[in-house]
């Protein structure tokens, strides 16, 4: 089979995150391949619905949980519309993992600060669980997560679990006007909540993912707190078809998101041409 | 053409327009140019090599040109007919552009041809042209040159195709369209392909397969022909742009003949002329309804 051939996967679970966001848990149909399949937090894959085509998502589940992968998606186009129609037991395709990853091994022994907005929690959640599954290897774990409204928060059950853990510090926030009467979290935008959380920069890595506007206004806050740009990581997305550096559409200047990314430091982002 | 240079310089100097879209001598033949200063205007020319239909640059899809501001555009009569269609279909406001018509004696098929205009090198559409002095203009320049010769190749090809049996004709188009690579150049250069999102780019549902196999190519070229029926002004830009040499103006020409015979439609630079597709006439032939 050529390198564009996906591995058949079975939809094992369908989880509605919000009105328009859904998570699929996928299990490889070939047990031998399932056994050998491995990846690192931050990598992505091409997910396909046969008849609709392929779509690029990060792997949202952690590599420490074996036997399945998960992806979270919003309904925006042909493939995601088709994914929305899938039920437990249906068949999809997956090829990957592709791209680079968050250097978690380098982060061992340090503090981790996770910042995410909206569905940007998907790639961050993969790293969070990866780190929590190896909890001894890391020191303080702080999570700042924001969404437009309470209804837009994804991975709600997991947020509750993190909130209940005493080895995780979780800040949840919604945009002003997005709160409900019983909302116990913060009200305000992510950058100001990060400012309020006052994470210490010393021996800390920041992993941030969300809408460009959120990243744009959060970076100065992190710099003010003393983070250096080589210790701030994010993950980019661009339209892709092959995921393998060949189809020619995901590059930002000389940098291929599929091969050099999708994970970049803030220092690397600064060097990229303004075309993303 | 000094008259054109003087006029366009004045339009820019007076602030009537921000840019002038015209023709210049390129490194290899005549080509479009966007002139923004009177100095730029000195480059403007017009001759038999001014093949391009510059009306295409007025399409609302040309966002990178729209940001340049109010434009004046140099038009042959056939190009003015395309502007008339844009106006008829409310794709353009008359006050948003300054139209500079040029009296035309016909153009070559290619932008690099040389020598006297002849039946061998003249564009298909030029013979018997009724629009050599465009009326849909703010300014009209040049003297009226002699009538262009008539090229017979396309008419001969249409006639020859009509002689064929349907199976033979289908075979002709199957061979011809097999070379289409679906680069969409025919669509991109067309002054009347104005859709913000072309039906061929829609994926959900996907009406037209994007693959350049025969099924996809027939779907695309039939959709293109039908979407241009009663709109096409026969400028021939699609065929000129086609890197596969597909005789697209044979399709357009045949559809044009049908529109003429059925609905009395001829390309015109009168924006108030009724559009066949937008006009109900109880006397329209209905024998196709069975």
């Amino acid at each position, binding site marked *: *089979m*050529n*390198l*564009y*051939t996906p591995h*058949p996967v079975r939809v094992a679970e369908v989880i509605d995150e919000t009105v328009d966001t859904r998570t699929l848990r996928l299990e490889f149909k070939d047990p031998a391949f399932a056994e050998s399949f491995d990846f690192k937090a931050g990598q992505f894959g091409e997910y*396909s*619905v*046969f*008849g609709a*085509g*392929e779509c690029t998502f990060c792997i949202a589940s952690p590599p420490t949980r074996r036997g399945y992968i998960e992806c979270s998606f919003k309904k925006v186009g042909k493939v995601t519309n088709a994914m929305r129609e899938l039920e437990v037991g*249906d*068949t999809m*395709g997956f090829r990957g993992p592709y791209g680079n990853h968050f250097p978690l091994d380098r982060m061992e022994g340090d503090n981790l600060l996770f910042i995410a907005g909206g569905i940007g929690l998907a790639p961050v959640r993969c790293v969070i669980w990866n780190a929590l599954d190896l909890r001894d290897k890391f020191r303080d774990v702080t999570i700042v997560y924001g969404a437009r409204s309470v209804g837009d928060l994804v991975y709600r059950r997991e947020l509750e679990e993190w909130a209940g853990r005493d080895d995780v510090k979780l800040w949840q926030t919604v945009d002003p006007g997005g709160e409900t009467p019983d909302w116990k979290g913060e009200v305000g935008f992510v950058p100001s909540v990060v400012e309020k959380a006052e994470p210490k920069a010393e021996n800390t890595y920041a992993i941030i993912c969300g809408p460009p506007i959120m990243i744009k206004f959060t970076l100065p806050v992190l710099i003010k707190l003393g983070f250096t740009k080589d210790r701030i990581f994010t993950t980019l*997305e*661009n*339209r892709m078809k*092959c995921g*393998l*550096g*060949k*189809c020619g*559409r995901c590059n930002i*200047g*000389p940098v291929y998101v599929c*091969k050099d990314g999708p994970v970049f430091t803030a220092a690397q982002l600064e060097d990229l041409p*303004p*075309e993303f | 053409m000094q008259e054109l240079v003087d006029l366009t310089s004045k339009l820019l100097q007076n602030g009537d327009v921000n840019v002038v879209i015209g023709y210049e001598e*390129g*490194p*290899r033949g*005549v*080509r*479009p140019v966007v002139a923004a200063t009177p100095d730029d205007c000195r480059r403007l020319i017009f001759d038999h090599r001014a093949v*391009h239909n510059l009306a*295409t640059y007025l399409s609302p899809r*040309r*966002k990178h*040109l729209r940001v340049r501001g109010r434009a004046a555009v140099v038009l042959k009569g056939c190009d003015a007919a395309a502007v008339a269609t844009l106006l008829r279909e409310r794709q353009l406001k008359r006050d948003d552009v300054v139209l500079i018509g040029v009296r035309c004696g016909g153009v070559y*098929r290619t*932008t690099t041809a040389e020598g006297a205009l002849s039946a061998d090198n003249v564009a298909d559409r030029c013979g018997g042209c009724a629009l050599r002095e465009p009326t849909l203009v703010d300014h009209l320049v040049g003297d009226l040159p002699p009538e262009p010769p008539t090229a017979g*190749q396309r008419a001969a090809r249409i006639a020859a195709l009509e002689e064929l049996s349907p199976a033979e004709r289908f075979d002709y188009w199957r*061979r011809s369209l097999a070379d289409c*690579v*679906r*680069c*969409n*150049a025919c669509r*991109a*250069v067309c002054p009347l392909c104005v859709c913000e999102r072309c039906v061929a*780019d829609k994926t959900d549902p996907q009406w037209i397969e994007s*693959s*350049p196999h025969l099924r*996809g190519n027939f779907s695309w070229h039939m959709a293109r022909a039908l979407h241009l029926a009663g709109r096409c002004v026969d400028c021939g830009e699609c065929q*000129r*742009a086609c*890197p*596969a*040499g597909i005789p697209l103006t044979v399709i357009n020409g045949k559809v044009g003949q049908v529109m003429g015979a059925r609905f009395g439609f001829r390309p015109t630079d009168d924006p108030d002329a009724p559009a066949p597709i937008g006009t109900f006439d109880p006397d329209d032939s209905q024998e196709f309804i069975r």
Partner: protein
Amino acid sequence: MSNEQKYLSESEFDALVRELIASGKRVVAPVAAEDDLEPQADYRAVSDPAKIVLDGPLPRRSLKEFFLPATEALLRWRLKKGDVALDETEADYPETVVVGASPCDAAALPTVDRVMDWDYRDEPWFGRREATVVISRACPGRDSSCFCPVVGLAPDSTRGADVMLYPSGEDAGGYLVEVITERGAALVAAHSKHFQAPREPAGVARLREEARARVDGNSSARPDEIRRWLDKNFEHELWDRLAERCHGCGACAAVCPTCHCFDIVDEPEGGDSGTRRRNWDTCQAAVFTLHGSGHNPRETQNARFRQRVLHKFAIYPERFGEILCTGCGRCVRACPGGMDLPEILEELGRLATSSQSAGGTP
């Protein structure tokens, strides 16, 4: 030249082609376009050597489509009761001999090999590459659109060719044959009866000289200088105006021997089965980079044309040490809007020179 040489007469050329066809090989060669008002040529699979026109115009489209077809099936799927069967598409790439490749088309093949082998090997591309022997014919130097010398090539470059034919310049026709690769040697050995003892007809050197003279003066652009300038000038006023006449039609990419970008689409055929296909695509189309969200990193045609220039003259050289252009000039000839790559390269060269003399860092 230190390679093995032979001589091939005009009649033995025809006999060789007939023998190749008879042996079941697909022979691809330039032929006169069957249906066009202008004299044009296309590369086609031929069944008769008489159809081959080696001294005609440069074929409209490059050889690319015989290695990366405009559309090809990557796989077929059949859904059945909650399961899927994936059928590999037939990976039997026909044994092919290209006869009379233009050197600018042959040179593109090893260049595109680099991206097709970048960490992951593209089997369909290499399947066809390995099944193909390329016999190039030294080019006479076409017209003012040619700029192969700018990218380090020449009308008689052997890059990408397995066998090279140099027209003898004699009235009787015939070719000086140079064997470039082992694959070429194997072909010549397998059909040795058609090749005569080497002799260098007097006209060969003269024709090669004339061909070079025809294109050498077309451009003085220096790609190394241009690349240095491009690396520092992603944002420059040049890009704001550069593509105003450009229609974004992508004809340039369709005819380009090195443009290789593609799309992958699913096409259902009936309810439960269908084909996943790979189709040519172009960075000149707005939808190429359009995100599902509606955001487009390359919003304007100016940005899209900059990508085309950067990919060919900065990004690909940085990644692979090769310019993604062979100077064939097809993009110039095909462009309905008069975009002119050699002219743009000259302009970039001027900017590069003036930024250096203005004290910019080299």
